[in-house]
């Protein structure tokens, strides 16, 4: 044994062939396949011959439980208890993760399947102006809802992002006396049901102050939901900035504000982008706060400050309840477009600010070179 080992090393060391690190050994695969087959056979036997059982879900559960038990025994016989536990944990984690992805994939595929029929270029350019009860699903479009969503979420982020990051800075950098109660308030805000946010804006902004239902009113309702998400995420992100960097900045004679604005915030830039993304994700699919505030519309309204607007979730909510097939198809297309919109926004956000603090983009490089800093 020792002799063969030495000889192999002597011949292989001279080549540059890289070692292939295998995380799963072939024996494991064999055990898995064997366990799967034998547990399947056993389940089949139980269901068809011995027990009065039926039903697909129970079948799968029994199969999975038997699979775990059989592979546990097999690995324990081959490798001992410690390895068997490791194997079991790996299988459970893998199957849990796969199971979690299933509904996500199903939702996406389902919406694509339902929505792509009526997805035509004019969905992005036309509104529902000339759509009648008997119009085909491919006629008209949802551009008014797309513009509404973009404007409402845009204005909501203009309100909530600066406010949220400022609050996070107060909670984590200033650490003022109000930090603790403020954190409680923010936590309570994140638990506000979205319909309550809509009711609040409806009562306070529209009824009490006498404003109209507008895109802006919708934005206000959305920012109530947006703010706590951004604040708490940004706070966690700021906490991750090493204290040594703050000390280094202060030791150079930096003021608190410059330490925050020039060191802490730039260092946590990609995390702050994540905070914004999570905030947008929180509100972009909201329907309830918009029902009372934006009013809904079938035609394009470019002005978020005046007149009713539509939004994609609201568009879906209204159209899906129509009796006509064509309207229902349009609603699904609206849902699909909403998903695409979210995807596009997130990709853009990642591209703009998602890289780590070490990343130097083209724009920054140009700016640095102009200042003689690169």
């Amino acid at each position, binding site marked *: 044994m020792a002799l063969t080992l030495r000889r192999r090393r002597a011949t292989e060391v001279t080549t540059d062939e890289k070692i292939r690190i295998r995380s799963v050994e072939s024996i494991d695969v064999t055990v898995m396949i064997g366990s799967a087959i034998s547990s399947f056979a056993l389940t089949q036997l139980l269901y068809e011959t011995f027990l009065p059982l039926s039903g697909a879900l129970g079948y799968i559960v029994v199969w999975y439980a038997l699979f775990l038990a059989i592979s546990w025994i097999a690995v324990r016989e081959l490798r001992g208890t410690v390895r068997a536990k490791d194997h079991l944990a790996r299988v459970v984690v893998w199957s849990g993760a796969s199971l979690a992805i299933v509904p996500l994939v199903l939702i996406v595929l389902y919406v694509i399947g339902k929505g792509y029929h009526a997805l035509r270029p004019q969905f992005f350019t036309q509104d529902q102006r000339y759509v009648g009860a008997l119009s085909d699903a491919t006629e008209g479009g949802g551009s008014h809802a797309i513009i509404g969503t973009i404007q409402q979420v845009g204005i909501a982020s203009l309100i909530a992002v600066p406010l949220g990051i400022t609050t996070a800075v107060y909670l984590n950098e200033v650490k003022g006396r109000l930090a603790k109660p403020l954190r409680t308030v923010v936590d309570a805000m994140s638990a506000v049901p979205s319909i309550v946010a809509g009711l609040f804006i409806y009562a306070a902004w529209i009824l009490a102050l006498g404003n109209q239902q507008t895109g802006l009113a919708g934005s206000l309702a959305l920012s109530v939901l947006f703010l706590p998400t951004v604040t708490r995420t940004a706070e966690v992100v700021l906490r991750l900035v*090493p204290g*040594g*960097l703050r*000390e*280094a*900045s*202060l*030791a*150079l*004679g*930096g*003021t608190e504000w*410059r*330490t925050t604005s*020039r*060191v802490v915030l*730039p*260092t946590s*830039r990609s995390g702050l982008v994540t905070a914004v993304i999570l905030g947008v994700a929180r509100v972009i699919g909201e329907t309830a706060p918009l029902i009372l505030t934006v009013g809904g519309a079938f035609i394009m309204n470019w002005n978020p400050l005046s007149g009713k607007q539509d939004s994609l979730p609201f568009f879906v909510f209204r159209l899906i309840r129509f009796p006509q097939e064509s309207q229902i198809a349009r609603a699904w297309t609206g849902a699909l477009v909403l998903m695409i919109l979210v995807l596009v926004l997130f990709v853009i956000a990642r591209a703009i600010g998602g890289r*780590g*603090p*070490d*990343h*130097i983009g083209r724009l920054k*490089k140009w700016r*640095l*070179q102009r*200042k*003689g*800093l*690169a």
Partner: protein
Amino acid sequence: MTDLQITTPVPTVGSSTAVVDDETRGAAGLTAKNVACWFGTKKVLEGVGLDMAPGQVTALIGPSGCGKSTFLRTLNRMHELVPGATLAGEILINGVDIYRGAIPVTDVRRRIGMVFQKPNPFPAMTVAENVVSGLKLSGLKVTKSEREDLIESCLTKAGLWNEVKNRLGDPGRALSGGQQQRLCIARSLAVSPQVLLMDEPCSALDPTSTRRIEQTISEISESVTIVIVTHNMQQAQRVSDRCAFFLAAENEPGRIIEEGPTKDIFTNPRDSRTEDYVNGRFG
């Protein structure tokens, strides 16, 4: 090397509150009188008095937990950043109290710079940006050509220029550990401090980088007073003019046991505990 000090541009102070005069230029003397420190109710330092003469290198030595880093942090008002930390006594720069005097805390810290144990270049800045970051952070304004000169002269003084002159646009953290620490020294020098505090600056570095930093210390010590905390006895002997030995008995605050010229501390200590420590018998 000596002509570099002449080419170093003098940044003009942008804020109107700061007074620019000779008092804020060149190596300054630092004096601690009867300093005591607490973390919460725990007293960690007591009756510390020390004179750090202009242009000299003072080494603070002693076993872990004796309060030398705490003392160092009182010298540029970093101690107070720890929640619950308090102190008593006087710290004077050129005779002016840094706690009760008229000098704003940001000016205190600009005039008394600090290099930390762990290299901590700003991750979101390039090598060049890191060097001049102190100017931005403390509101000092320079022209583009002054900035370029400052970057070169500070990196040269820190012994880093030749290694990074073609990498000025790289992120600060792309450098090796030793280079990062020298970048931090260059960063501290860029705001022309009168005193530079160094808290075990070589403890995370390899021997070559350590030697390079010791060389840097001896090169810059003419124009800036240096106070260095070190656990390395040889380093203390190599770089320092004077030495202060700190010691804390169990459950008691740390004190200075002995203080004097480095040669005396190492070859002819007055206190037996100093002798035991510098000869490696404890600590």
